[in-house]
């Protein structure tokens, strides 16, 4: 990975820790296991903790568990070679033991690619349900486990009512439990239930994070989300095509904020509580397209869907994060415009890297 890209990550980590280092102090000297460790969240957590070790002598250890461990050295070679980062090549559904030095766990193993949810719902469901069960069973026997953060999903709420500006953690909705298109959401709901059972029966300190959407370095652009398409269209000179309803509302959090918030939730969250994780400031698809266009060296045209008058579905997915903000003192340092700008910069640097 070239120095330019490393520099960007380094700056992001510096920015997010500069004023809030004490929040992360309980991490010093601890051993953190991250399942799904070579994914988007795992990679960013590894970057942040590596930064803390190098800059502030945190002396923390990271274990990244993944069934794709071999791919990490290609994805983040500078992390793969580090002595404070170890890879565990294992299927999450088949955990029979965890190294006894592990004192913190972030369980991020899942398959957030919605194409897989459609094509292989059984595997998606099993990775989440059997995987969480297998992990919790082993985690409950750890002698030094202090805290466990379960990564759930903002999708567990079911569809967000259009008149609700932001979803709060107390919102009681839900997906349709008999439809295969609810696979990911329902499996995550079950995983949350299993975690609260372990908290109840085994007195484990388990906190839940419900992530929404993110945009930034290490995010693969091949997932067919609107923002990825806009960025791809922008990088290839446009036009940026908006398909579907321009007024559909989304929000995007930048991953350095995400990584910091995750660690804060892990270290300071109240066991038994769920915290939304995302950007509370919603933007429409139309606005996102504009933001992406603004970041292109030559501003491309923005065009709308071919069939404008078809029945289009508006939807919203925006979290209320006041619980995390008020009770954990968390702040959003990178706003949407800046997130888009940095993402475009990263992707352009990647392209020129080839």
């Amino acid at each position, binding site marked *: 990975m070239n120095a330019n890209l490393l520099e960007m990550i380094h700056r992001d980590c510096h920015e997010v820790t500069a004023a809030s280092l004490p929040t992360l102090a309980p991490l010093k000297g601890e051993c953190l296991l991250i399942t799904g460790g070579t994914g988007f969240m795992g990679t960013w957590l590894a970057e942040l903790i590596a930064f803390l070790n190098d800059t502030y002598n945190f002396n923390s250890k990271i274990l990244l568990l993944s069934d794709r461990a071999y791919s990490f050295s290609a994805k983040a070679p500078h992390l793969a070679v580090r002595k404070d980062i170890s890879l565990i090549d294992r299927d999450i559904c088949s955990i029979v033991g965890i190294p006894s030095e592990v004192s913190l766990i972030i369980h991020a193993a899942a398959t957030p690619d*919605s*194409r897989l*949810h*459609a*094509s292989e719902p059984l595997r998606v469901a099993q990775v989440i349900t059997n995987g969480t069960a297998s992990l919790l069973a082993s985690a409950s026997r750890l002698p030094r486990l202090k805290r466990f953060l379960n990564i759930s999903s903002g999708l567990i709420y079911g569809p967000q009512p259009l008149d609700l500006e932001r979803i709060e953690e107390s919102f009681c909705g839900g997906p349709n439990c008999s439809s*295969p*298109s609810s696979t990911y959401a329902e499996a995550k709901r079950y995983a949350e239930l299993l975690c609260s059972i372990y908290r109840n029966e085994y007195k484990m300190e388990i906190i839940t994070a419900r992530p929404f959407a993110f945009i930034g370095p290490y995010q693969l652009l*091949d997932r*067919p989300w609107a923002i990825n*398409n806009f960025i*791809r*269209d922008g990088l*290839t000179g446009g036009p940026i*095509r908006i*398909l*579907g*309803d321009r007024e559909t509302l989304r929000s995007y959090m930048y991953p350095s904020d995400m990584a910091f918030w995750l660690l804060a939730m892990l270290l300071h969250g109240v066991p038994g509580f769920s915290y939304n994780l995302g950007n509370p400031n919603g933007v429409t698809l139309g606005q996102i397209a504009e933001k992406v266009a603004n970041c292109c060296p030559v501003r491309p045209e923005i065009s709308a*869907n*071919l*069939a*404008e*008058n*078809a*029945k*289009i*579905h508006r*939807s919203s997915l925006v979290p209320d994060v006041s619980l995390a903000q008020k009770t954990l003192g968390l702040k959003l340092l990178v706003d949407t415009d800046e997130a888009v700008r940095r993402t475009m910069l990263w992707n352009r640097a990647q392209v020129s890297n080839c």
Partner: protein
Amino acid sequence: MTRVVISDPTLRDGSHAIRHQLTTAQISSYCAAAEESGMPIVEVGHGNGIGASSLQLGESLLSDREMLQTARGKLLNSKLGIHIIPGFATIKRDLSMAIDCGVDVIRVGCHATEADITCRHISYARQRGREVYGVLMMSHMAAPDKLLEESRKMESYGAEAVILMDSAGAFLPNDVKQRISLLNEGLGISVGFHAHNNLGLAIANSIAAVESGASIIDGTARGFGAGAGNAQLEVLVAVFEKLNYSTGIDLYKVMDAAEYAEKEILEVIPFVKSTSIVSGLAGVFSGFAIHVNRVASQYGVDPRDIFFELGRRKVVAGQEDLIIEVATELAGEKDKG
């Protein structure tokens, strides 16, 4: 006024009727005429899509590349579209070549219950920044709810619309209404319809589709296509305009394009024959007609019997080899009887 996008596969679906023997001159002139008429999308290629030229499905006169390059040269405002079926065509050999030739719209088709085979092709086309639609073929062979589930898969892969194909011309208007409405309600993307005329209902079905929320409709010049043919393009344009939908197409000029096609491309203007009715009732892919007729005469069996047997076996497009097997069996029974 609500807009309906008409997509013209005269030079693709029509190809079945002339054993895929389209010439450069025909493609060139028809595309020029379609461009002139303001046709939104012009679809070009072998009847079963790019990469399908084969002994099984019929060898085309021109290579895919030649057809696409010829068409691209004549289409400026009109978009150039292709049909592609995974299992026949690959990304490396066929789809990337087509995109390099300047294709704008890629329609990835599969049997109505097997949408997951379209994931990679749809993803690839989206990554290359093209417009991508999913196409569910033989859609009469799946229950409406199943069609919605499969459409959702295509939506998740990045398809920008799902087109229901009535490949056998088996639907009645109410069947179309039910399915299109369901898809329209359940999807966040556009819905389209491709009619066949086996039971004389192509236009009526297309109207039912639009009135249920479809925004993309396929039609060919003079209904050019295998067997009983497709929804007649010029008629569609006229009827939609009369129903107060805007197509953006010049009526006189699309009629001129159809005149050209009738004179220079079509061998026969499609009409509903006995075998058309039978294949529509049996639910067999219209593109089989030419093969069935040929094999029937070779083996001395009634083509209608072949169709009903193929329907009973639920054959899908690409299984033309079964026609010989069925004919062999029927001939054997005839000899015994």
